[in-house]
């Protein structure tokens, strides 16, 4: 800092920065990307380890015997589901009561802002059924949740069967110190949202639900179970929740530890772990796994029923049974024993899970990248914005507030227009196309308006505007990356180059093209293709476009149904910020 307090040296430093601005930016950008890609390289990552002592050292023995009976219960459930044509509430209540649980139901209804075409629903009405296993001699202060969604069709019957089987088995054990809530939720996430809102008596999304009659105190952890076949080859762990929130890493560690102990293949992002990290294919495998996690986290959607628990500070994950054509199969008894082991360890917890990381990326189930390792990748990109601010001319005459304020206000108004949910149309496609239309119309709007108000734009004018825009972008990306690193990093990857090169003096047509390519909407489009590519399910352009449209509609729905913040963030802040750069490009 002595360097900066000496005016001569400061001047020299600034002139050096200004002179070497372009190379520094390029080097930082490359370094940021390289750092990020290096995160998936196994020697650079840490092995996962159990931080919570209460779960680490204690031994539990798994004895769940009744896998076959659970499957039979699942078949019975499926028959009743077919007969009723939905959730067999009466049968579930009776079955849970017979297993010695205190059973309660909750009705809920919700009208979607526009029909959801993916799941074909508009007016949603349903019932959640849950049974509480009261722990002996416990004062109802703590609870654990095991949930299984009741999905239409033939899916997930085995999960409900196993849930009921576990309830029966758990009921006869004496060691429970926390109440265990067995929940069967209808309409997957909507039902879960209704139940959680009812349990915590909040109403963030304007849903109608009947109040809950029975509670078990503060919920410490939750698992959601998805199982659609009698035998499985592997179990997949889903962690990404609402707004990119993740459960404590110890929950993933616990799952991994029990998979190892019981001998079940386990995957994350549907990818098995490989041991050949030093080969190219091994490295690209872990890059793929990590990139999938980044994409899912950036989307801000709950990727399973567990995703909504995280808002309430409840550590939760979804466990999905996968039946592929591999040789190695595990039966329901094995999965039951795995869950039993996990619940017994969670039952031993004295405190909430807090010892391990909340911010991490996982290139495989046994390795993780903590916040301290991945933040520098973002930091290197943010440095570019700082050098841009630094190298801005220090003695500027004020060009008039109006000429800077106008584009700011106009671009934000356009953003508000995109974000407003009360579209006058009620068809999904119409909603999405309206959003895209406003978005495109926004490109035409702002870049000429300041001339109407304050006459010809000056050289100083665009420089001040750019300074404001770069500052705005730096704050925006910094905050986003702190909350949801993946989203912040993807936005930084595309928007930082825009901020770096845009001036009114670059070739207009080419720059406009690049700017459009790097705009938020196009980023989303590329992400859709990239995501499909990562999942090894490449799509044609037309299918990709349809997927892109549905992703937008899902984003709007996620916002209004569960309170996801990604859509408003893009529409209200990121898009207007990008419009400012668009404005600078066409400054006259």
């Amino acid at each position, binding site marked *: *800092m002595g360097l*900066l*307090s*000496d*005016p*001569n040296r*400061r001047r020299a430093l600034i002139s050096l920065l200004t002179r070497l601005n372009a190379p520094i930016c390029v080097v930082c950008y490359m370094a940021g990307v390289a750092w990020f890609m290096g995160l998936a390289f196994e020697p650079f990552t840490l092995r996962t380890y159990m931080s919570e002592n209460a779960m680490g050292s204690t031994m539990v023995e798994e004895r769940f015997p009744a896998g076959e009976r659970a499957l039979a219960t699942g078949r019975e459930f499926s028959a009743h589901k077919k007969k009723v044509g939905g959730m067999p509430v009466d049968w579930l209540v009776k079955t849970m009561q*017979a*297993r*010695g649980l*205190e059973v309660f139901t909750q009705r809920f209804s919700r009208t979607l802002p526009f029909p959801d075409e993916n799941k074909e629903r508009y007016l949603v009405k349903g019932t959640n059924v849950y049974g509480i296993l*009261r722990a*002996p*001699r*416990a*004062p*109802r*202060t*703590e609870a654990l949740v095991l949930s299984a969604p009741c999905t239409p069709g033939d899916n997930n019957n085995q999960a409900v069967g196993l849930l009921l089987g576990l309830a*029966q088995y758990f*009921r*006869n054990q*004496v060691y429970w110190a926390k109440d265990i809530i067995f929940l069967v939720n209808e309409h997957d996430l909507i039902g879960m949202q209704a139940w959680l809102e009812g349990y*915590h*008596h*909040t109403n963030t999304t304007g849903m109608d639900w009947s109040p809950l009659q029975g*509670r078990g*105190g*503060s919920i410490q952890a939750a698992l959601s179970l998805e199982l659609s076949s009698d035998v499985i080859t592997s179990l997949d762990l889903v962690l990404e929740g609402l707004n990119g929130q993740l459960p404590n890493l110890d929950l993933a560690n616990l799952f991994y530890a029990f998979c190892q102990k019981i001998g079940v293949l386990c995957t994350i992002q549907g990818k098995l772990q490989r041991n050949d990290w030093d080969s190219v294919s091994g490295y690209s495998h872990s890059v793929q796994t990590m990139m999938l996690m980044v994409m899912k986290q950036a989307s801000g959607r709950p990727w399973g029923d567990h995703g909504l628990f995280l*808002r*309430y*500070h409840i550590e939760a994950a979804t466990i999905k049974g996968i039946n592929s054509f591999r040789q190695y199969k595990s039966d329901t008894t094995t999965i039951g024993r795995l869950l039993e082991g996990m619940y017994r360890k969670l039952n031993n917890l*004295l*405190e*909430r899970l*807090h*010892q391990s990381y909340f911010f991490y990326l996982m290139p495989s189930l046994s390795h993780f990248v903590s916040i301290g390792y991945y933040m520098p990748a973002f930091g290197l990109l943010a440095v570019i914005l700082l050098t841009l601010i630094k190298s801005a001319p220090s003695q500027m005459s004020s060009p008039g507030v109006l000429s800077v304020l106008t584009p700011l206000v106009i671009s934000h108004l356009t953003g508000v227009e995109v974000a407003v949910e009360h579209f006058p149309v009620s068809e999904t496609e119409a909603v999405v196309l309206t959003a895209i239309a406003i978005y495109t119309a926004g490109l035409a709007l702002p870049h000429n308006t300041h001339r109407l108000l304050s006459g010809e734009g000056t050289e100083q004018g665009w420089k001040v505007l750019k300074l404001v825009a770069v500052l705005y972008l730096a704050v925006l990306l910094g905050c986003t990356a702190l909350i949801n690193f993946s989203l912040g990093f993807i936005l930084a990857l595309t928007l930082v180059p825009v901020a770096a090169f845009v001036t009114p003096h670059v070739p207009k047509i080419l720059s406009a093209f690049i700017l459009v390519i790097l705009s938020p909407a196009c980023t989303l489009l590329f992400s859709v293709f990239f995501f499909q590519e990562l999942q090894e399910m490449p799509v044609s352009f037309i299918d990709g476009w349809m997927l892109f449209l549905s992703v937008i509609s899902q984003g709007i729905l996620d916002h209004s149904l569960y309170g996801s913040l990604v859509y408003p963030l893009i529409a209200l802040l990121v898009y207007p910020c990008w419009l400012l750069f668009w404005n600078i490009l066409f400054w006259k």
Partner: protein
Amino acid sequence: MKVHISATGIHMEADTSTPETAVPSSVPQPKDDFQEELVIRPLHSGDIYASFQFRTLWETDFMRGNKVSHYRLFPKSLGQVISKFSVRELHISFTQGYWRTMQWGQPFLPSPPGAELWVWFQDSVTDVDGTWKELTNVLSGIFCASLNFIDSTNTVQPSASFKPLGIGNVTDHSFLRYATLPREIVCTENLTPWKKLLPCGSKAGLAVLLKSEKLFHSSFHSQAVHIRPVCQDWQCKTTSWELRQTLNVVFDLHTPGQGKREWSLFKMFSRTLTEACPLASSSKIYIDITDNPQGEQFEVSPATPLLSQAMVLGDRRTFSVYDLTQQITFGTVRSLNLLIRWKSRDMLRPLLHGERYVAGYGLQTGEIHTLMYNNHPYRSFPVLLLDSVPWYLRLYIHTLTVASKGKDNKPSYIHYQPSKDRVRPHLLEMLVQLPPNSVTEVTVQFERALLKWTEYTPDPNHGFYVGSSVISSLVPSIVAMDTNSTREQPLFSSFFPCKEESSYFVRVYTEPLLVNLPTPDFSMPYNVICLTCTVVAVGYGSLYNLLTRSFQIDEPSPGLAKRIANIIRKMRGVPPL
């Protein structure tokens, strides 16, 4: 159904010192008296509820200095406590588990999870707080519990909810102290000192059943000690001291997939009874057979011809009575092993029950919801709600709402004492009328305080407990009261005074709450200290320096000759050198 009124009444009314008493007593009554009793009630949920009561009565006056020195049945440790601390009434309970009112109905003696202590002091006590502090520490030693954690931050003086249960009409609540420790865990080390207070210890009588390995293998366990002055006779000229030791336990009988279930004394307690406590004047087992008049729900063996009726909690109950003082009870095998076989079960809703939970999310604010259910089909009744909330939940009392059936329900009496940080808790008492067949919801918002770093408990991420709220009420009776049944009432039915004949007193405790407060990450103080020091020293210091000062190149000061020359030039009006 044949009802035989048992001949042996309760000796409470007998008094030898007053010859006017009409009670014909052939044997001279001892000055102290001990009775023991076990009530077994099969619950509607299929569980089984066993309630022990041991009562010692002693005609003495502890308040006459230190004259009381000879103890026979009354435990000396408690007697000394009463005289030293001038205790008028003392009620202490240790409970592990939560009484499930919806499944089990009302207990004979309610108690909240954890430890509860309330004491009325004599009006001669000048420094009540100091005495209270000493008393809790002494009791902590006697019962081997953490009662020494009771201090001013969790002690309140309820104005209406806790009235004296013995004689005496002191209602100045400045002599009352009430505290709960919801986190207290009750186990064998609390049971052993409790058993030692009994005249027979656990050597003989009903107390042989109290084996900790079985008592703590149950759904609910509660033990209590109640000391109060009671009348010696109907005229109530003199008083005697009553010590009641109670122990309530609920055994879980869930065995799925089996139609036939049976339970016996041996299965419950791993012991059978062979004799009564030789010091006891009465020793009885009652089995509640009200729901089973014709033996269709369960059967009891061995059968007994002795039946007794009593009003318990507004309901007329019928009991099979086994008198342990009679040798015939034990039969030829000289041991009593009661056996109950279940056949079917059904549910009954209790008239009053309460629930409580914390609403909201995040670590800044929250809302406490207390729900009070009145399940009576046509009668409304008033309840007294007592809430004692620790200071670190800062209640926003202006957000207090009371609503029944969607409408505002204005409490007729509110007593609120705001908390003082680190000194005393919030106390909220109110009298609310519960409309028939309704749920009344009391909500109040709170803010979670940030504690000082030494104030966190050893496991801060576990959360902080808020004790149960207490709902006290006179609940309308299910059946009309029979005024003649006072004489053969068993002990467990005669505890709370009943003023209105058509209603009975009930106290219901809600669940305690577990609330998370904003908690720093204690596991990495070193990192935090390093980081903050670095940021403050390097980052903040120099940035502040750079931002608040402007740097200019300063010319070295000119020599003396030059300055003089400049002054001269200035005077001449010529530009300086």
